[in-house]
């Protein structure tokens, strides 16, 4: 159902629009753009919208590369026994799939959305540090080309899992590990620079009159995410530097023979790693908190509690890291501490889920594609949250640890969680980016094939995991055959259905139903006051933001 919406006037009593919306139709870059043309334009661009687009295209490409690696894994696991690939290559595929999806697809995807939308949502003309913005993007293609090239090196690419536990990643690692470390350093620097830019933008460039508690939740969640990035990416840089020293310079940070401790690697890694998983989900909360009120045509229920809940989740994320390590032999008191703090996270997360449901309550709901993805996010992310609670129970975790139950859990929070949120955001903001509504029919096909594919892939993994199937092994016992066949068929369905997503984007860029400035009936934030498509330069004179009750 294409939204039959009359072009609306700018939202009442909210913004006195400054003169920059006057260039209504078409690309307004004609009068502005004096930079180089062609490829150089993209290489040298400092415009937040162009850099945002670059990030999003990069993220989509990585999503497909990581997806192909996942399909290699699923194809091998289609039947028990070894059919297609050798175990060594299988290990490289699981590792690279994880690394590419985490650092190459999900994180740059969110940074791309931040680049596009944060300046528009706070009424800023651009990011605070545009040249830095260019640099942080262009680090990424270099980093990931280097990472992917390790697959072609003698001894193969990283094969120790995306968590690169020592000593697998030090004493027993392939020679290419040094390249892996360098590429991760570059990706980390890119994230750090992006985070600095986002913090500087949000804290300094808000439209006059916009207080912190007036900011849209996507901006809030990204601000908190950026602080998490600043806090933990240096720890990741530290731990991979120690690996580098252990491998090449004879130190023994993680080598017991030299006085080091491999368990310490896991502590430092997860001190980074747990905030990292929230880095991948907090912006998703912001996106869903924008989409659900729009399509329920109500204000978001409990705005302030959403902000506080996000902050609590971020603070708690520093206190739970050892729940990834229940099986390493922690003392009882540590098992209990990390078990309780982990369960505590369910409280602020529950606040968020109930706020979304309360927003839907008695709303005038319509089900356009962005809303479908957002609703699927709420339901399926909650399933992932519940399996997370099961894993948080330390004694039960001794059974679940390193099984497919863990795989099912984190794929439920990352695929129908983070990835669906990014897709929802793309459907939601495409009218603003391209000036055209996405094709609703194609969007629905994409949505339903993705939902069926995701659940068919990951739901059976709960059962195979509870029955004891270990993760990261290319072969398995016969009793897991049916579950794995279902998972593999689901993965193929989910993977191919993403071609519909690409088709939808291409069609939307090239044409489609014209979108007005306020593309969605219930949308209220500042980005809907600039024309669709958003001209290259917006808010050159800041809009006057008028406070509105949340």
């Amino acid at each position, binding site marked *: 159902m294409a939204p039959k919406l009359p072009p609306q006037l700018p939202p009442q009593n909210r913004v006195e629009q400054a003169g920059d919306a006057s260039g209504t139709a078409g690309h307004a870059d004609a009068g502005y753009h004096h930079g180089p043309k062609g490829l150089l334009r993209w290489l040298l661009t400092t415009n937040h919208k162009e850099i945002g687009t670059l990030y999003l295209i990069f993220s989509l490409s990585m999503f497909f590369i990581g997806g192909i690696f996942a399909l290699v894994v699923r194809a091998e696991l289609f039947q028990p026994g070894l059919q297609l690939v050798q175990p060594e290559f299988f290990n490289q595929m699981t590792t690279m799939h994880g690394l590419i999806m985490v650092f190459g697809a999900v994180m740059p995807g969110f940074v791309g959305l931040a680049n596009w939308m944060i300046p528009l949502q706070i009424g800023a003309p651009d990011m605070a540090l545009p040249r830095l913005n260019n640099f942080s993007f262009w680090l990424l293609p270099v980093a990931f080309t280097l990472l992917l090239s390790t697959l072609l090196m003698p001894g193969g690419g990283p094969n120790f899992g995306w968590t690169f536990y020592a000593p697998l990643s030090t004493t027993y690692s392939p020679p290419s590990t040094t390249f892996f470390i360098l590429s991760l350093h570059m990706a980390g620097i890119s994230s750090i620079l992006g985070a600095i830019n986002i913090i500087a933008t949000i804290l300094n460039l808000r439209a006059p009159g916009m207080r912190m508690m007036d900011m849209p939740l996507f901006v809030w969640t990204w601000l908190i995410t950026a602080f998490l990035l600043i806090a933990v990416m240096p720890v990741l840089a530290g731990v991979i530097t120690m690996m580098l020293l252990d491998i090449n310079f004879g130190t023994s940070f993680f080598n*017991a*023979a030299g006085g080091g401790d491999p368990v310490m690697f896991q502590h430092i890694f997860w001190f980074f790693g747990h905030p990292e998983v929230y880095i991948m989900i907090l912006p998703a909360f912001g996106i869903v908190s924008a989409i659900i009120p729009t399509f329920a045509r109500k204000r978001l229920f409990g705005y302030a509690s959403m902000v506080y809940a996000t902050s609590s989740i971020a603070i708690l994320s520093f206190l739970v890291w050892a729940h990834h390590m229940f099986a390493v032999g922690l*003392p009882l008191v540590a098992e209990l501490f990390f078990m309780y703090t982990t369960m505590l996270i369910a409280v602020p997360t529950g606040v968020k889920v109930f706020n979304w449901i309360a927003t839907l309550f008695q709303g005038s709901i319509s089900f356009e594609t962005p809303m479908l993805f957002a609703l699927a996010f709420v339901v399926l992310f909650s399933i992932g949250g519940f399996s997370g609670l099961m894993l948080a129970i330390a004694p039960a975790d001794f059974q679940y640890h390193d099984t497919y139950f863990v795989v099912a859990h984190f794929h439920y929070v990352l695929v129908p969680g983070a990835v669906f949120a990014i897709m929802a955001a793309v459907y939601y903001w495409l009218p603003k980016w391209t000036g055209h509504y996405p094709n609703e029919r194609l969007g629905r096909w994409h949505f339903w094939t993705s939902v069926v594919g995701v659940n068919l892939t990951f739901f059976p993994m709960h059962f195979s995991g509870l029955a004891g199937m270990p993760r990261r092994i290319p072969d398995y016992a016969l009793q897991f055959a049916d579950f794995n066949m279902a998972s593999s068929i689901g993965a193929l369905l989910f993977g191919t259905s993403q071609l519909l997503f690409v088709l939808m984007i291409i069609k939307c860029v090239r044409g489609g139903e014209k979108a007005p400035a306020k593309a969605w009936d219930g949308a209220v934030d500042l980005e809907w006051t600039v024309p669709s498509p958003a001209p290259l330069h917006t808010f050159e004179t800041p809009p006057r933001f008028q406070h509105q009750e949340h």
Partner: protein
Amino acid sequence: MTGVQRTVTRTLVVLLAMFVFAFALVPLYDAFCRVTGINGKVENTAQALIRDSIDESRVITVQFITRGSPGLPWKLEVLDRQVRVHPGAATEVHFAFTNHGKQAGWGRAVPSVSPSEASLYMRKVTCFCFQEQRLDAGERYEAPLVFQLTRDLPDDIKTVTLVYTLYPVDDKTLAAKVLANEAPAIVVPGIAVPGGEA
């Protein structure tokens, strides 16, 4: 200074602090484990015997496990695999090092206690693990361990396992520092090289 500059300066300071913190975690982790005894690391210097009455009502099983190391053709054997002791009593156990290699060398046995809580109550009066050993080719060397489990050992601990792992020592002075925990993560050339095991 503009607002943006101020924000950037502050984030850079936090950034640098967190990078330093990541490396500070290494000694902090070591100190934390030593104070709480969490990691099964025991005092590596001789401790005086606590002259205390012996708790005849409790019997603790103390087991010994020895492990070799790749790159060191030595064998460490324990002559009494398992002893039953009363808390408070000092016990002597004998170990034997044998060098099966063709040349003399230095090696060291590094202890670890399980369950790790017990490491706080394990006092060693004499131990071959306090210093590195030098063995000629084919030499066999017997060395004693005298230990005491203190009377305040928690009641729920019924069995204590002591694991000794042999490590080669290439540079005697550096190795001594590592074992004295003055240099927790320092170079022991020839050991940390990946794929260096014979």
